[in-house]
């Protein structure tokens, strides 16, 4: 019986079944939700790892849920990109989970208002595990209506996590986030309706095989794109993101910036590539123009922020741009473009999550995150400061880091396809990124000695998990052939 549960194809279900199960458990064990939460996080990570291994060994996995083949039933599809995203979620998610364990403990121990922190922890775990499961379900889904439901799950749990901090700013941000999210989902759902009307199927592969141009299809594509862009916070739809990401609890900020935006972007990428024959250069150019605007605008905003978490949040706005400027480069074959953009996505996920975790630790220690007044953090929290700097290194795309590899691939493709305006954009974007990162890092790593900062109040696991994540971002600068080999498993 155990054997049957661990059959080859079965590995596709565990990355979302386990967290869903864990969400229920941690919801019920409200006295100590941390324990089931951490155990399930570990198991989910393991199962994601095994899934990746199975993918390399046996090729693309398909799984017909309920035994019904599509288009009647729903199927899961574990190809390279999907499994890579699952793996990314697992690595980032595990580190965030470990961080969260220490984070809530430190807060409960620190502040007199401990009841509220206990309640926050109690609901953090179910919401976070549900989000994790929903993300995995989203990545593995091959059915467009199923994607809608997973999107909703992701959106709702993100909103729940955003408002968990309970402070007024996060409530307003969460409200706006929720409305934008629902609007995006509805647009997506209407698009799904049009697609079903045009193709009589909800299976993405079936639809893409039968693809031909007609007004309903164009409308569906437009609705789905706008819906997903709203959720991915691409400029000019980014307005909701910075307050939501910056005002959330530290692990939540990391989850939102590192993982959640990747979910809707991933769907967008799949749809867009599948419908590429219908879209043509015009649509790609529009995406790249929006991406470029995001890079420039986000960087300027990040540079002018006074708060560390706001800076990191605006940095997310800017980095999302890189996920979209890839589209004009798909002209010479989707393979290399996918490699570049997915590599960018996974390194950004690790780096950004590490930076948000580090920023949260700094916040907890200092009681504020005004960039100007952060001198002396290095002495109190050397590991955290180092983690922040390493994450920044990867964002800037300097070697050795995953960001460097991604930037190399981007530039290489842009040069080889003679897209000089993209080259210029990437170069300028890198310069601006370096500017705002160093603005923060120069204060955090400032050698100024500051006395009387008091005792270190954060748990060691908070510092080390952020560092581990940052080190993964660095490590990605050396092991690129492995993730790319995984990504290349398609068919």
């Amino acid at each position, binding site marked *: *019986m155990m054997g*049957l*549960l661990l*059959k080859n194809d*079965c590995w596709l*279900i565990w990355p979302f*079944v386990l967290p*869903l199960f864990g*969400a*229920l458990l941690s*919801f*019920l064990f*409200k006295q100590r939700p941390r324990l089931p939460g951490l155990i399930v996080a570990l198991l989910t990570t393991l199962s994601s790892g095994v899934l990746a291994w199975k993918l390399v060994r046996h090729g693309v996995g398909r*799984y017909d*849920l*309920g*035994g019904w083949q599509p*288009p*009647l*039933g*729903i199927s899961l599809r574990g190809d390279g990109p999907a499994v890579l995203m699952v793996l990314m979620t697992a690595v980032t998610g595990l580190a965030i989970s470990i961080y969260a364990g220490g984070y809530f403990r430190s807060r409960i121990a620190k*502040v007199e*208002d401990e*009841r*509220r922190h206990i309640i*926050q922890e109690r*609901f953090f775990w*179910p*919401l976070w595990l*549900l989000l994790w*499961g*929903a993300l995995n379900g989203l990545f593995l889904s091959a059915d467009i*209506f*199923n994607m809608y*439901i*997973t999107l909703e*799950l992701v959106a*709702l*749990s993100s909103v*729940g996590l955003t*408002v*968990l*901090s*309970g*402070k*007024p700013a996060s409530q307003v941000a969460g409200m706006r986030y929720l409305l934008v999210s629902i609007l995006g989902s509805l647009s997506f759902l209407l698009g799904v309706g*049009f697609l079903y009307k*045009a*193709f*009589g*199927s909800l299976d993405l592969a079936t639809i893409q095989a039968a693809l031909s141009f*007609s*007004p*309903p*299809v164009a*409308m569906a594509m437009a609705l789905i794109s706008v819906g997903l862009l709203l959720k991915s916070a691409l400029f000019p739809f980014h307005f909701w993101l910075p307050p939501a990401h910056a*005002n959330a609890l530290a692990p939540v900020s990391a989850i939102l910036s590192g993982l959640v935006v990747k979910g809707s972007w991933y769907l967008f990428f799949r749809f867009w590539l599948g419908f590429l024959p219908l879209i043509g250069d015009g649509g790609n150019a529009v995406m790249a123009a929006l991406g470029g605007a995001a890079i420039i605008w986000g960087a300027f905003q990040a540079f002018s922020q006074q708060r560390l978490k706001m800076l990191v949040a605006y940095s997310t706005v800017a980095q999302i741009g890189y996920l979209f400027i890839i589209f004009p480069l798909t002209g010479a074959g989707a393979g290399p473009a996918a490699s570049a953009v997915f590599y960018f996505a996974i390194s950004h996920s690790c780096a950004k999550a590490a930076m948000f975790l580090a920023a949260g630790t700094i*916040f907890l220690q200092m*009681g504020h*995150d005004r960039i100007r007044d952060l001198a002396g953090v290095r002495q109190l929290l050397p590991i955290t400061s180092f983690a922040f700097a390493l994450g920044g290194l990867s964002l800037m795309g300097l070697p050795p880091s995953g960001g460097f590899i991604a930037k190399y691939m981007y530039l290489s493709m842009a040069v080889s396809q003679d897209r000089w305006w993209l080259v210029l954009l990437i170069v300028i974007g890198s310069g601006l990124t370096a500017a705002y990162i160093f603005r923060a890092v120069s204060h955090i790593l400032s050698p100024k000695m500051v006395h009387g900062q008091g005792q270190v109040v954060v748990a060691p696991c908070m510092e080390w998990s952020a560092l581990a994540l940052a080190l993964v971002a660095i490590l990605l600068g050396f092991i690129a052939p492995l993730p790319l080999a995984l990504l290349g498993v398609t068919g």
Partner: protein
Amino acid sequence: MRCVKMKGSEASGKRRHISLLSLLSLVMLAGLSAALAWAFLTPGPDPLGLAHRVDAALAESGVESRVTAVLLNYRAYDTLLECFVLFLGVAIVWSLQPSRPVRQEPRVDPVLSSLVRLLVPLMVLVGGYLLWAGSSQAGGAFQAGAILGAAGVLLILTSSRLLSTMPKGLLAWGICLGLFFFLAVAVGAVALGGNFLEYRRSSATMIIIALEVVAAFSIGLSLAVFFGGSRPEEPSERTAAGRPPHGEGEEP
């Protein structure tokens, strides 16, 4: 005087500005509706849809109602996730910490309470019927769940402490029960050698009915909890409630 005048002109300028904006959005909305109508009305490919496939597989599904077959057999995974959306809603509503004490016990209206006494059993009955009908015609777990939820809402209206006076944890278990059962069925199918959520032909009907019953119960409970609007306070919390969330150490 001049000052007032300026203020007036400023205000009118503002108004003009706003009206221009709303005009613009009106134009855009009109354009959107035109585009939607165009996309809807132009003949495109007109596929058959999945109706015939659903019909062809109906014999194996274990139920006679096509919609129920889709919901709880062919696309049961969607339904599973949808139940999790409900659960998620409950978790979020409960996680929102009240910033002022829970509202006062409402004055109990004698008409309402007698109506409730009359209505609730009837609603439970109707819910049961809908459940039973679901396997062959319109109806099913969600409709039944909605009726049960409405019954719950009525009960809460007559006694707002109803949710908090329930035994500790029972509510949470009740909400999770349907999900646990659903997950157990899904994973159990794998353990028995099938696919996730794959029922054997012989037991399909029974499983689906059981699923419907449990799901209807959980759905009804969740809907009633939504109406409650916040986490029912536990006895230990009563004193802590009402603190505004502006404590120090919060991230501003």
